[in-house]
């Protein structure tokens, strides 16, 4: 049964890879495939998949479930990075959203709906704050979001009064622990947010504007694009994503832990986005790529656990991935590489010879 399902899995995966071989997403997907293949061959039981209590169950499901937080955040982060910015405050916003929801339910005795929308509202406020600093005050994104990164966790602890607030609201618990169609409900949230992000960016013109602003801000402005509004909205949306991720994180452990929720998640999210093919300099963005990047990171972590490697060492392979991805994206590195392999350089950017000035005949040569 397992051999069969493995074969089926690989057949689908390989088919997908082949279909996407021309796409930008091919590379992160290939990396993910290689890591999974390694586990399939060398990590016993990693590929076990069974049905327990009517739910699908196995390491691969864990990866999807545990990776949900990074996936959620990376969706928003993708848009921010596409505008040429970055948001360091996502982890702090997660902690804040979790704390707000838990406080509203446990301390103030509100129901799930109030708690949910209260938390999302606060997260949106945080996004708006970041967006205003970056888009309207023109502060460098790293620095502008650093403010909330530093202060946000403090505010979260203020909200939770420094306590870990436990809650038992069934709806809230369902967010991070429930199942739908045998799969973790978090996956549904991720897919829903992916769909929403896709709708927001691809069914409106925001996606086009974000890419235009990130790729060439001046030219976009000259074309009448409201670059500031677009940038602002990207940060606002990231606030929403962080808020959702914070709720999922809290729900996962049925408690809001302002100290640890989303700690250093911003770095994972940025990494996921960059691995997924969106350049840190802005421009074209790849939502699904970011999700694959997030899965790659989570697979790396889960592999560590499964192989009984201390999770403390996990940052090392992550670091190597970061540098490798950076180098792959770097024009200079590619040039060195192509010189090294002595292959002719990739075809130049201008296929048809542009404008040789000599062509412009000048009748007045003395």
């Amino acid at each position, binding site marked *: 049964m397992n051999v069969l399902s493995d074969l089926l899995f690989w057949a689908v995966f390989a088919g997908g890879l082949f279909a996407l071989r021309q796409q930008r997403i091919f590379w992160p997907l290939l990396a993910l495939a290689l890591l999974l293949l390694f586990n399939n061959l060398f990590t016993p039981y990693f590929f076990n998949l069974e049905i327990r209590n009517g739910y699908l169950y196995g390491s691969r499901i864990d990866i999807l479930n545990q990776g949900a937080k990074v996936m959620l955040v990376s969706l928003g982060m993708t848009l921010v990075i596409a505008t040429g910015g*970055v948001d360091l405050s996502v982890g702090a916003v997660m902690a804040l959203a979790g704390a707000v929801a838990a406080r509203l339910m446990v301390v103030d005795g509100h129901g799930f709906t109030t708690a949910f929308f209260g938390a999302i509202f606060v997260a949106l406020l945080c996004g708006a704050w970041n967006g205003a600093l970056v888009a309207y*005050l*023109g*502060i*460098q994104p*790293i*620095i*502008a979001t*650093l*403010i*909330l*990164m*530093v*202060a*946000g*966790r*403090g*505010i979260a*602890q*203020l909200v939770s009064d*420094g306590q870990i607030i436990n809650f038992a609201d069934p709806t809230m618990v369902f967010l991070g622990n429930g199942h739908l169609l045998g799969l973790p409900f978090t996956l549904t949230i991720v897919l829903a947010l992916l769909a929403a992000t896709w709708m927001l960016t691809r069914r409106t013109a925001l996606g086009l504007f974000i890419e235009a602003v990130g790729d060439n801000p001046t030219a976009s402005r000259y074309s009448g694009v409201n670059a500031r509004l677009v940038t602002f909205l990207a940060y606002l949306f990231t606030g929403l994503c962080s808020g959702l991720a914070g709720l999922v994180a809290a729900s996962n452990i049925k408690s809001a832990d302002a100290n640890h929720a989303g700690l250093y998640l911003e*770095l994972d999210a*940025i*990494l996921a986005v*960059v691995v997924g093919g969106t350049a*840190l*300099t802005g421009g074209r963005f790849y939502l699904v790529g970011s999700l694959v990047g997030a899965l790659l990171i989570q697979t790396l972590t889960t592999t560590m656990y499964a192989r009984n490697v*201390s999770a*403390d*060492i*996990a*940052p*090392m*392979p*992550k*670091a*190597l991935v*970061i*540098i490798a991805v*950076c*180098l792959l994206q*770097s*024009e*200079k*590195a590619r040039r060195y590489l192509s010189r090294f392999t002595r292959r002719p350089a990739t075809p130049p950017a201008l296929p048809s010879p542009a404008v040789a000035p000599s062509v412009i005949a000048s009748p007045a040569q003395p």
Partner: protein
Amino acid sequence: MKKIDPKYIPLLATAVVMVALYAGGCLAYPNFGSLRVLVNLLGDNAFIGIAAVGATFVIISGGIDLSVGSVIAFTGILIAQMVGHGWPPMLALSASLFIGLIFGAIQGALIHGFALPPFLVTLGGMFFLRGLSFVVNPESLAIKHPFYLTTVRALAIPLTQRPIVTFPLTAQCFIVVVIAATALAIYTRFGRNVYAIGSSEPSAVLMGLPVATTKIGIYALAGFFSALGGCVATFYMQSGNPASFVGLELDAIASVAIGGTLLTGGVGFIPGTMMGVLILGLIQTLITFQGNLNTWWTRIAVGVLLLLFIALQKAVGARRR
């Protein structure tokens, strides 16, 4: 009176805030004005201060270094491990300083050589060294060498006898580093080139400055200072802990910003960074003296200060234009 050069305004503001915090503390709490609090401020914040000095150079050059906390932790556990294996402390200290320097230089080479964003490269460096620290030793390790147990204490300079207040080695290192780094920034070509690159890298190229070596040098220097911070931290804690100093880079960057260094590069002051570090320390001390405030007020206060100083820099910058 000569008009104040606008670039000094943030620095002055820093000084005013620092003095105000200190004066306020003295008024509000007995014993706050004691010599011991002053000595503690310097001694307790020495390692972060030294690392922040390194970060100042990076930020003046228009870059950023996120690997600071990991380098300190790595240096600490490495020294503890080496001394534990019978290395003489001096050798262990020099070796770790050298490793810090080389590590920084590699980061610099990646940043300059491949035109990679400093943010990502140093993020990689941060992850890498954090993991490596746990490879060296997964648990915190005490350093029990006579040098640490007695010499470090003996090197403290006695200030008063009743009560006994001494000026600890860590604080001495901090002062020396600040003076040396200030001299490096003001009195060497390297230092001036850092400012030039941060202010306008294309101009620096056209002016014929050695941009490549300077940029690699800046990150090497930051690595060195972080490692030195790690050495000082071992004096302070007499132990190494691979899990320690997580997130310290943010405190360092915040201190640099509060110290009047322009985060876009080109303007910055080593003594300002020292004041920034002391302001962070003062806030912490004030909250401890208050005794019933939650420490996360520290983070909120730092966030607010950061915002104010960035706004101030922005205002000064806008006025000049």
